[in-house]
Structure formats: structure tokens, C-alpha cells
């Protein structure tokens, strides 16, 4: 169980939980980031924040401060979903 902010660039994880009451999490859920989904922290911005994460074949930027509630499980050896669009 790791907060998303502690993932290293290139590291994969599986979303364990988020906080559906928060606007960011609602937006991410609309984009398809739901518990159980595999994601990858692709990179950090040059100034350290925001970060780019990849899930479901898309890359999305979010601010760490706004994504505090995202908890991922890095123990699971899960690749980012490929091929794209596989439901």
C-alpha cells in the first residue's frame, strides 16, 4: 500500500483505493481509473510536480497535492494494461 506520490518514475502499481468524494478522484474515475486498475507513474515534471501517470492506454497529468488519496499496490507485478482498449 503506497501513496501514488511515492511511486518512482517507471514504476507500476495497481490502484487499491481512492476517495470518491474528491473532485480529482471523480475526474479520474470518469477517465476509467477505478480500483483494481493497473497504472504506471511515467514521469515527474522537471520541477517535481505534477506527475504523469498512464492507465488504460492514456497518459494523464495530475498534481501530487491533489492526488493524495490515490493508494496503489506496487507489490503486485502488474504491467500497464496492454494492448490498449482491451476491456
Amino acid at each position: 500500500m503506497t501513496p501514488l506520490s511515492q511511486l518512482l518514475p517507471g514504476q507500476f502499481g495497481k490502484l487499491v483505493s481512492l476517495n470518491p468524494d474528491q473532485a480529482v478522484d471523480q475526474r479520474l474515475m470518469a477517465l476509467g481509473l477505478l480500483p483494481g486498475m493497473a497504472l504506471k507513474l511515467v514521469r515527474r515534471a522537471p520541477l517535481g510536480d505534477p506527475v504523469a501517470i498512464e492507465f488504460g492506454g492514456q497518459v494523464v497529468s495530475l498534481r501530487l497535492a491533489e492526488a493524495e488519496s490515490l493508494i496503489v499496490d506496487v507489490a503486485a507485478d502488474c504491467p500497464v494494461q496492454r494492448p490498449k482498449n482491451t476491456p
Partner: protein
Amino acid sequence: MSSKQITVALVGNPNTGKSTLFNALTGLRQKVGNYPGVTVARKSGRCDCGDGLKVELVDLPGLYSLAAASPDEQVVTDVLLGSLEGSQQPDAIVVVLDVTNLLRNLFLASQLAELNLPLALVLNQADIAHEQGLKIDTQLLSQRLGGVPVVLTSAWKGEGIASVRRAIAEVLNKKTKMTQLTWPSQVESALGAIVQAIQTDTGQAPSSADAQRILFSSNAHTSDRLGWSQPQRESIVRQARDQVRAAGYNPMAAEPLIHYAHLRKVLEGVIAGGTGKQGNAAALDRVLLHRVIGPILFIGIMLGLFASVFWLAKFPMQWIQSGVDFLKAMIAPALVNTPMLQSLVTDGIIAGVGAFLVFLPQILILFLFIGILEDSGYMARAAFIMDRLFSWCGLNGKSFVPLLSGFACAIPGLLSTRTIEDPKARLATAFAVPFMSCSARFPVYALMCAAFIGPLYGPGWESVVMVGMHCVGLLFAVPTAFVLTRFVLKVKPQPFVLELPRYQMPKPSDVLWRMWQNAAEFVSKAGTVIFAMTIVIWALCYFPRDAQMSDRIKAAEPTLSEHEIQSRTQAAMIEQSWMGRFGKAVQPVFDPCGFDWKITVGVLASFPAREVIVSTLGVTYSIGKGAEADSQHLRSAMQEAKWMDGPRKSTPIFSLAAVLALMVFFALCSQCGPTIATLAQETGGWKWAAISFFYMTILAWVMAVVVYQVVIRLI
């Protein structure tokens, strides 16, 4: 057929190709307007769907979910629900989807199905799907979704457009609806309970889509619209949400969870392949978002943008200026017998047209750049790189381009705030842009520095003051944005969640078309206001007229040359014009800043355009019209100017304190009619334009007083 216009709405996620498709379907028959009462642009156009069927197609802003988070998204939802006053519910919906990310795009479509309107799906970007080796079974998809037309297109290549027209005609004829998902029974009954309660409490039956918005969205927008009050709904909604929770769903997560689960089943067997080329984003990002190379390239690109807006635009601006001058010179002789008409036509009308035309080169160049940056996919990366520098004061990474452009000119800067999705950050950025030291402030600084700072303290200090003045605005803009977003604007802050799209070659015709549309909108909206302002200011400086003025001057000092008489007459005329009288009357207000009446008239006359101060000072100091910042005469006239009376009698008017105060005043004051007009255009009303005007002007006055009073005591 009835005379009622049939409207069809284009809806979809951002960046799916709605606008490209819209352009392909409507061609040049487009209208850009505004939804009543909101700043969201309403783009509509006529689309010919064959067999004489003509519909009004509306291009809506992109959104990811009907559970609207931002006010702009709320507008889209309201339009689709038919609940926005002054706008009718569309007769059919065309959902535009990015076929390479079908699952996510179908989430919105699946929510839209709940609206129970005739609907067609357009799977766009087929060319990319083809490149990636994706194969989509559109027939199977259509069948699974209740027979709605599913069309595969590439709006970019213009492929499949005819089938979209046919699909529109088909849904309008057959009223095909997309299959709605089956809610888990507890959720279904929770929705039923809400519908029931609203019907009992308000007497009107809400749609099931309304009930979903109330159950699943955290805001109370829908309940408020239906007139379902807080005490009436509170316990009902809580019970309904408890029911959803009993079914094992967090009520705030239930909607995406249930829709996505449903859609995964819908898509089974629909997509094949897709293991092919993975796109270019990862490889390019490795360079463009690299920790060191990324920012360097970013600075390079932005310098290029700034140089183009600043320098490249100078040439066409000069042509426009010479064109205006040429026209004046052409027309003036023809009207020489009617001096009032002559002045109205040359200094009023022609100058007024020139006053907004002169912004076009910068606007066109900036929007050319923005179009290229957006369509190539780089704009999102630029925002990603810069966001950290802006997030702390309530702005975001997308504020950078508008603020940078503001250093050339506030007008293109303000127009480019359109690229900021978050309304709060957009408004705060628009508020900050006019503080940036635009190129019109340059002549003022140049005149003051060359006439006073340089001669007194040497070229070293001259450059220090020059650079310093360019930072003053920024220094005040940042805290202003901070206070504005933190304490003043009550809108909920939007999370900065930004898709980093794939990189792509921009399509020239699209970029040029949008560039043109932005410019045309500026001319038709802000342009008319700017024109009107110019005429008003002309009148204030022209009237009342004293026909005997030059004779009297000649009689008093018969030795004056013809040229001197003319300059003196102009100076005397402006002194007794409404503007001059007003300047003298309000001079006491500016006295604590160390401004005499001539400076005050200059300050007042330059409210429509700050650079006017130089030529106004030229007139009031009897140098004649058309004085420039490098005019030696003007400099020495100002250096010699002394107070005529009062406690400062016979000390120089332009002391160091007054010079600095004047420059600080110009750095901060809202002295630009076009900026105010554009601010009003972009914020959807005069409220924010007025707030900006008074805030900047009062701030400028206060800071000028502070500078004058402090410096005069120190030196």
C-alpha cells in the same frame, strides 16, 4: 415540416475531433455566439444531411462526464438536458469518440444514453486506429447498443463525413436510442425513490437522467434547478445513497463503476488487434519532458513565440499604421473647409478603425502559434512543465502563454486565456494579463528614462530602471492572482487533471481557420467597442472649439512663426477642451503623485491607450502633434518645466520622485480601452472588466503616491 429549426449537438471528450468534424460537416456556414448569461461560446452551423434535410449543428465544449465539475461542463450538461434558459434541447445527439480509446469515450456516451434522445456514435480518428492495427466491429457495437448508427470516420482526412450526414438523417427519422444500462436493483429503486419524491414535492416529473444527477453528483445544481429544496431533499437523497451503499457501491463512485462494468461487456469482441505500433508519445516525451532538455526546449519554443508576437508583428502593424496615416493624408485635404468633419474623420473614425486593426497582426500570429502548439500535442506538455510555477497562486500551467503574450500586448494574451479549461484559473489569468508590461508601456519608460534617469544618473541606472519597470506589473499581478483565487472567487477550484495527448502533425487548414475565427470574433465584438471609445475620446479632446484662438495668439505675439502659432494653438485648444478642463479639475487628485495639470491631462487622455501620453505631452508642451519618445524638443521642454505656483513654485515638475511615480503609475494603471473591451468579451460581461479597471487604476494611484512621497523625502 414545422418551421422549428432541428438542432443536433456534437458531444464528446475533449480532443476527440468534434471541432474538426464540425468544420467538415458545416463548412464555412458557422456562427459563433454565446450561451445566454455564460461565457461558454456557442458554435453552430448549418449541416446538410441529404434529401433537403438541413439541421443546425452545435459544437459543444468537450467533457468527460455529465457529473459536471466545472461551470463550463455544467453548461454542456444543461444544454443537453434542455434546462439552459434560452436554449432548446437538441433533437438528437452525435457522440464523437476517439476510437483508439473507446472504453473511456463510451463512458460519456453511456451517460448520454440516459437522456433518452436519438443518438448516433461517430468513432473518429480511424486513421490512427488503422496505424495501430486496431479493428473495430462497428456492426456488432451498433447491435449491442440497440441499433444506433455507429460510423467510423477520420475527420482529419475527411473520410466518412458522408456517412455521418446519413447517420444524422437516420437518427432523426427513426429516433433510434442507445440502449441504457440496467442498474443494479437497489440503485434502480434509489433512483425511483428520488423521482417519486420530486414529483410529490414539486408537482413535476423529473427525467431519470435528472434523478441520476441528483443521486450521483456531489453538487446540488440539478435539485436547485428543479426547485427541490434542501430540507425537502436532504433525507430522501441520504436514504437513496444509503441504498446504493447497501448494494456495495460508494455513491460517489457508483456511476463510473457501473457504467464501466457494463461497457466492458459491451466491448467484448468488438475490438481486435491493437498490438501494433504504440504511438510516438513515449519516445518524444522522453526528450520533450526530459528534466534538463525539456525546459531548455520549452524556453526556446516560448522565446520563438514571444519574438514572433513582439517583433514579427511589428512589420504588419507598421503597415497598418502607415495605411492609416496615408488614408488620413488622402482624405484630410478634401475636408479642409469643414475642420470639424475633417478632424472627426481623420482623428476619430479612421484612427478608431486603426485602433483595433492594429492588434490583428499580433492576434493572428499568436493564434497561429497556439493552434500549432495545441494540435501538435505540445501545449499540454508545456502546461505540464510550467504548472509547478503557477499552481501555488491559484493559476495553472496553461496560464503561461497568456501571461507571456501579455508582455507583447494584453489583447492577444487575454484572447489566449481561452485555452485554460478551469474557469477560476482562466479568470485569474485574464485579470493578471493586463499587469504584464506590454509594448505600449515601453515608449513611456523610454521617454522618462532618456529625459531624466539617463542624464542624471547615467546609462547604467537607466537600464536598471527600464528592467525594473518591466517587473513592477508582474510583482503585483502574482499576489493579485493569489488573493483572487484564494479569497475572492467562490467557484470551487478545479483539479488540474490534464490528458497528455499523442503528438501529431497539425493540419494547416484547421489551424488557419481557428486563427481566422478568433480574429474575426475580436473585430466584431471588441473592435466595435474600441472604435466607439476612440470617437468619444476624440470628441472630449476636440470640443468645445474656440475659432478665434489662433488669431488671438498671433495678436498677442506677432513675432511667432507659422509653425509656432500652430503648436501654441493646439496646446491652448487642448487646455480649454473638455478633456483639458477635466484634467485641471482633477489635478488635485494627482497632486500627491506630483503630477501637474499637463501630466494629468496626459494621464487622462491616455486611458484609451497609454502610449498616447507621449504625443499628448507633445501637444501640451507646445511641441506640436506627433511627438515621439525620442523627440529632443519634448525632452528639453519637460526638463525645463517648473511649477508655476503653490508650495513647489519654480522647482522642476519632473523631479526624480515625479518621474518614478509617473512610470509606476503607467506600469500599473488600466490605461487601455481595448483591454477593457476584450476583458469584457472574454469574461462574458462588464463586471470583471470594471473591477479590473478600478482595481488597477486605484492601485496605480496609490503606488504612485507612495513612490512620490517616499522618494521626495529621501532625496
